[in-house]
């Protein structure tokens, strides 16, 4: 992508005003996306992203710049311009690049870019017709397919020089059920760090049917009750609760400057003892995995919480200086247009020992949230929210009527301590996570769990 001598020259220019550290990030990425509406391809788009980001540290401060032009002379100019924001005496610098030779652990069998668009369209038709034919109430089906391959080169003044390739593919069905003026959608998808071989392993017709089932089920569901009561959050995307309630608050982005409710709490009990959680960027071919993070550090499995005790944060290079703690291989960015910072990779609550049936049976009146949507958090106050896409009432220990339109809210420390039971049916899900360094694929997952009490934002009296 760029030769070592050119990178050395750029790094030297970046350090010319007394920086302590400089880094070059080169990205070359190819994207494909196709949209199908009611069984017919409506849009197809492909394109190439290319750019170079240059970052310089001086003490706790950082300068970031990027450009799309790769001529060596231009890059040196850009680096000098960025360096001009700092003032100091250049230190002697001899960089000796050590090429990392880590065996890639996320092998892709079939590069999605090598698969014909027609083959992708056929795949989309399977999901589309499965949704369309599920029920007469299904009036519209939109299927979105996307894939990309991102090649990165990361080099810095500490001698790191790594190349990595990240491949992602995603398939989403959105079905709309209608009855007179009443409309309801259902949305199911699958994302992966695998290649096109993913589609030999999963059944896209099931995705279509499941989206249609959700839409028709929720079409006539009554509004969710409102108030505080016990909730069972199912596995897979249910992990959004930990992602919002705790995960963001453990990122150095908010911890380093003390703007997190979890700052200064290492070694303390922050959750109920049935809770153990990790952030693991090494899970083979997962949605949030990579060989190296976006600072060129090998990814690793970081224990965040063990039996309720806070064990670690997610820390990037710049914040590690401020925090005087080690980096954790989880610094990420959307693209060369963003400086990287500590972010989640695949964040999981680990299996417990309870049984799903026992959780439901233990609740006299509550909510069972089968599918969850996205959410957000204010890490300073710890207040979070996330949406429920498909939910049911639990009455006298049994799952009963479907209810819709609920959002669950709470504060991180409170809700972590109210996780009363953790089951043994762990599974993972995929989402896009937006924060300071852009929108990135983030894996999440958990076994079904029971929260003893959480505020449910419905519309009906309980």
């Amino acid at each position: 992508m760029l030769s070592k001598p050119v990178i050395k020259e750029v790094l030297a220019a970046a350090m010319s005003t007394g920086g302590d550290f400089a880094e070059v990030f080169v990205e070359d990425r190819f994207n494909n996306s196709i949209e199908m509406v009611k069984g017919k391809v409506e849009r197809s788009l492909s394109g190439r992203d290319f750019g170079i980001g240059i970052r310089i540290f001086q003490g706790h401060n950082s300068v970031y710049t990027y450009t799309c032009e790769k001529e060596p002379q231009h890059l040196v100019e850009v680096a000098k311009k960025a360096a001009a924001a700092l003032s100091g005496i250049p230190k002697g610098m001899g960089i000796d690049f050590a090429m990392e030779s880590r065996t890639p652990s996320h092998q892709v069998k079939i590069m999605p870019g090598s698969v014909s668009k027609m083959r992708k369209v056929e795949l989309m038709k399977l999901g589309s017709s499965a949704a369309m034919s599920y029920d007469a109430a299904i009036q519209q089906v939109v299927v979105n397919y996307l894939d990309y391959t991102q090649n990165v080169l990361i080099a810095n003044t500490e001698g790191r020089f790594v190349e990595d390739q990240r491949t992602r593919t995603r398939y989403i069905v959105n079905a709309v059920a209608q009855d007179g003026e009443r409309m309801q959608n259902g949305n199911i998808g699958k994302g992966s760090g695998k290649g096109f071989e993913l589609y030999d392993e999963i059944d896209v017709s099931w995705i279509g049917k499941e989206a249609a089932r959700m839409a028709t089920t929720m079409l006539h569901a009554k509004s969710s009750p409102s108030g505080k009561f016990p909730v069972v959050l199912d596995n897979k995307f249910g992990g959004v609760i930990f992602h919002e309630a705790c995960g963001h608050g453990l990122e150095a982005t908010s911890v380093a400057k003390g703007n997190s409710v979890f700052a200064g709490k290492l070694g303390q009990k922050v959750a109920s003892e049935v809770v153990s959680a990790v952030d693991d960027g090494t899970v083979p071919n997962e949605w949030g995995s990579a060989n190296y993070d976006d600072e060129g550090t090998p990814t690793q499995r970081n224990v965040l919480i063990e039996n309720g005790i806070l064990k670690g944060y997610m820390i990037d290079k710049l914040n590690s200086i401020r925090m005087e703690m080690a980096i954790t291989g989880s610094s990420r960015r959307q693209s060369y247009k963003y400086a990287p910072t500590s972010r989640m990779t695949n964040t999981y609550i680990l299996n417990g020992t309870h049984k799903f049936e026992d959780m439901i049976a233990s609740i006299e009146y509550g909510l069972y949230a089968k599918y969850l949507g996205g959410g957000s958090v204010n890490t300073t106050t710890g207040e979070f929210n996330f949406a429920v896409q498909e939910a049911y009432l639990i009455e006298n220990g049994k799952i009963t009527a479907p209810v819709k339109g609920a959002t669950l809210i709470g504060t991180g420390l409170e809700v972590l301590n109210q996780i009363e039971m953790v089951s043994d049916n762990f599974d993972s899900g995929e989402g896009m996570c937006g924060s300071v360094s852009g929108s990135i694929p983030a894996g999440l997952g958990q076994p079904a769990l029971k929260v003893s009490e959480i505020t449910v934002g419905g519309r009906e009296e309980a």
Partner: protein
Amino acid sequence: MYKQLIDNLFTLGAQKGFEAQEIYMLKSKNVEISVYDGEIDKYNLSEDGGVSYRGIVGGKMGYAYTEILDASQLQMLVDEAFGNASVIESEDKVFLHDGTGEYAALDNFNPSLSLVPMKEKIDFMLALEAKVKAFDPRIKNITHNSYDEVETYRWIKNTKGLDVEDRVNYCLAYAMPVATDGEDTRTGIGYAISNDFYELSVDKIAEESAKDALQMLGAKSLKSKKCPVVIKNETFTQLFSAYMGLFSAERVQKNLSSMAGKLETVIASEVLTLIDDPHLHKALASSRFDAEGVATAKKAIIEKGVLKTFLHNLKTAAKDGVDSTGNASKGSYKGTIGIAASNLIIQPGNQTFDALLEDIEDGVYVTSLQGLHAGIDPISGDFSLQCSGFSIKSGKLDFPVSKITVAGNFFEMLKQIEAFADDFKFSIFSSDYMGSASCKIGGLTISGE
């Protein structure tokens, strides 16, 4: 500078078999400065851009884009766009505009903005940080602060005669302080936006952001109830703009909007008038042409509660047998043509904010909504959102509230709007650049303890 490159691209495209072709180019320059503890914390300086290419072959439109703007990418663009056109099955007619129409004279570019020395901009942020921290002893920290300056150049040229370009810029400064009182921690935000650096005021942003955090100290949850709700001007635009897709003709035609068939019917309370005005001076979404190069125009979308028009691009307009409303949009050079509003204005009422509260015995004033990307459903209209604000008792603001949600249905809410105050304000937090006054709604559900 790119003229020759584009001519070569069109020649290659014609050889490939494209009957008509177009490029949409964006170039932007960005500056971002944040400070921490009296020093520059982050300083970002960037130039970037890309070009979107599209062409019609066999009645289908193919798209491709690149961020590398040189000769090495031309064949890739043509081949990819051709391949993308070949899988399109939709039989909708596709168009490229020929450049006819009345284009308004607009000037939203301030050439002197980028000439203001960087040192002044850095000093502005250092002064802002100091001022916020000195505002009140309970202000302990600032979680985020930034000075952002953006300059964007846009050029659309096609083989049917269209050749339009424009340049816009703006600067934005904000601070998000933390107020702490014992264990109680609250955050706030204050900002200013302009394309004239000297219109930004340290004092104003400092006061607004600090008060925003301080006023929430001591906030409590509420018992769940149905009650009248007043939504703050800027906050109401966030909720409303999350539903703007309902007025896109594309979504209507695809049966993804329940506004279908409702033109010229009453969809909202008669106090609601919503205007799309692309020609406002110094407004963020002003432009004399849309993403297809079609001349833009001002129009009412909702007038006194009656739905007057959907927003159209060339394709949806042809399908409905009307003219394009000049609302074609493109997220960036990476996107395909869609539909979006320009500057949106909800017409204010003529009573003061205090008067708006007067006859509310027991209600909630919502000043902030969270999770808008997840807690609203544009298909069913249902929403349930984490919020904070103040309790309203006997016609007056009482104590601050948080850890509650507000829930309702957008379609029902439109009809339950009782009045707007006269405190009109544009917001940068909504997905469209939209302005509104504070809004009183008959009844929504609050969930809490």
